[in-house]
C-alpha cells in the first residue's frame, strides 16, 4: 500500500485526520473538489460528510463538476484569530454553485471590493511544502 501523503486543509487546521477525510484530501491534492453522496437516500453534501445527516448511512465521494459560482456573502477579515494574523486582511466568501451547493473559502485575487452576486471561479492552492492544500475562490 502506498504511503499516505501528509495533507491538511486550509491555512490553519486542527490536523485531526480520519481515513475518509484523508481520502478526500488526496483528491483535493489532485485539484478535484469532491462532494459526498448518501448511498441510501442520495442526499449530497458539500463539504462532504462521511455519514448522511438524514439516515446515518455511509456516503461516497463524487466530484463536483461545477466551476463557476455566485458570491452569496463575504467578509473582509481585518482582525484575524491569532493563528491567521499573518494573513490579515483576507476575504472569506460563501460561494453558491448553480446546483445550490455552497462552499466557504478565501477569495485570493481581488483587486476591488467584493460584491454580493458577483461571479466566482473555483481554484486550488497549496503551500510551498505541499502539505497544506485548499480550494479557493477567484474572481
Amino acid at each position: 500500500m502506498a504511503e499516505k501523503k501528509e495533507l491538511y486543509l486550509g491555512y490553519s487546521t486542527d490536523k485531526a485526520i480520519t481515513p475518509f477525510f484523508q481520502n478526500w484530501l488526496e483528491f483535493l491534492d489532485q485539484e478535484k473538489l469532491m462532494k459526498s453522496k448518501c448511498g441510501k437516500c442520495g442526499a449530497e453534501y458539500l463539504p462532504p460528510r462521511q455519514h448522511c445527516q438524514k439516515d446515518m448511512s455511509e456516503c461516497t465521494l463524487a466530484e463536483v463538476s461545477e466551476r463557476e459560482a455566485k458570491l452569496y456573502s463575504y467578509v473582509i477579515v481585518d482582525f484575524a484569530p491569532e493563528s491567521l494574523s499573518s494573513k490579515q486582511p483576507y476575504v472569506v466568501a460563501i460561494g453558491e454553485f448553480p446546483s445550490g451547493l455552497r462552499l466557504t473559502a478565501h477569495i485570493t485575487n481581488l483587486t476591488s471590493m467584493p460584491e454580493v452576486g458577483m461571479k466566482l471561479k473555483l481554484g486550488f492552492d497549496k503551500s510551498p511544502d505541499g502539505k497544506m492544500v485548499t480550494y479557493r475562490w477567484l474572481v
Partner: protein
Amino acid sequence: MVRRVAVVAGGHSKFGKRYDATMRELCAEAYKPIYDEGITQDRIDASVLSYAASQFTGQGAGSALMADYIGLQEKPHLRVESACTTGTASLRAAWGMVAAGLYDVMLVMGVEQMNRVSSATATEYMSRAGDMRWEYPYGISFPAFYALMASRYMSEYNMPHDILAKIAVKSHFYGAQNPKAHLPKEIPFEEANNAIPICRPLNLYDCSLITDGAAAVVIAAEDRVKEFTDRPMWIKGIGAGASENMIQDRPSLTTIPGAKRAAKAAYKMAGIEPKDINMAQVHDCFTIAELIAYEDCGFAEPGKGPEIVENKENYIDGRIPVNCDGGLKSKGHPLGATGVSMTYEIMKQMRGEAEKSSRQIKDVKYGLAHNVGQSGQFVNVFIFERGW
C-alpha cells in the same frame, strides 16, 4: 405538575477588564447583594454555574471552585455550557429543576473572565466555536460570522452601514448611564460609522467587548416566593431554538432561524404577542445581531428592522426599548454572565430600580430576553412577567 417559578433576587458585578479579580471573586461580587438582602447560603437548595469557556483561564471544572468560594460547597451544583447563550441555558436548566419539584430555591450564577489572554488569543478561542474542520482553517472569527450576515443583509435590503452605527450610538448612550458597564461612554455617530474595520462591513463599534464579569439571580418555586420578595418576576415563557452549525448551510443569512423558533415558542408558552412586550434585552454581540433580533423577535417584519432604528423606537420612550443598559456592546459581554445579566436588568427595570431615571423604562409588565449562542446555533428566549 409543573410549578410556576419566579426570579426573586439578583446581583451584578462591575463589568470590564477586571485584572483585580478572577472568576471566584467576580462570583462573590455578584452574590454579595443577594446575600445582603438576606438570601444566605442555607436558603439556597442548589446552584447552576454558567461559564462558557475554560480556555480563557485554564481552570477546569470551575463550578466546584466557584460554588465553594461563595459558600455553597455543600449544595449540589452543575455547570451548563452553550457558548454565549450559556446564561439563559443555565436559567432554563434551573427553571426545569424548580418547576419539576426537585428543588425550591436555586442560584444561577453567570461568570466569565476573558481578559487574561490577548484579544488575538481570545479571538482565536472564539473562532474555534466554528466548525474545526471546515470553517476554522479559513480564519472565520466570531465577528466574521456576523459580518457574513451583515454583508448579506445590506445587499438584500440595500441597507447602508449608518443603521448599524445608529444602533451602536444608542447602546453607548445608555451604557454611559450604567455604572456597571464596561465602556460607559457615549460615541458620536460619525465616530461609530467610521471606526477602524474589524471584519468588514463591521467596524470596531459594531462589535461587543471582551469583558470580565458576573451576574446572578435567585429563582424560587411559586409557594416559596413570598419568603423572598413581594416583587417576584415570573418566568412566563421559555423558548429554545437551534440552527445549522455551518453558517453556509443556513437557508437565509438575514435571520437566525433558531431565534425565530425560540421566540415563537416563548410567546406561545407565555400566551402573549410581540406587541405586548414593554422592553427587550437582545443579544447584540454585533450591531447586525441586534437588528436581526428585532425581526426574529417579531418587533419588525423581515427587512423592516431599520425602521425601528431610524424612528428611535428602541429608546426608553419608544415602542420597544431595547438594551437600555448598554447591551453587550457597551455594558460588555462576559459570555457566561450575559444571559443572567439580561435577566437581572429586566428585573431591575420592572422594579423601577435603574440607577438613573434617564434610562428607566416606564411601567414594564412584560420583558423579553433574547440570548444567542455562537452565530445562532443555540438560542434561548425568555419572557418575564411583573408579579405585583
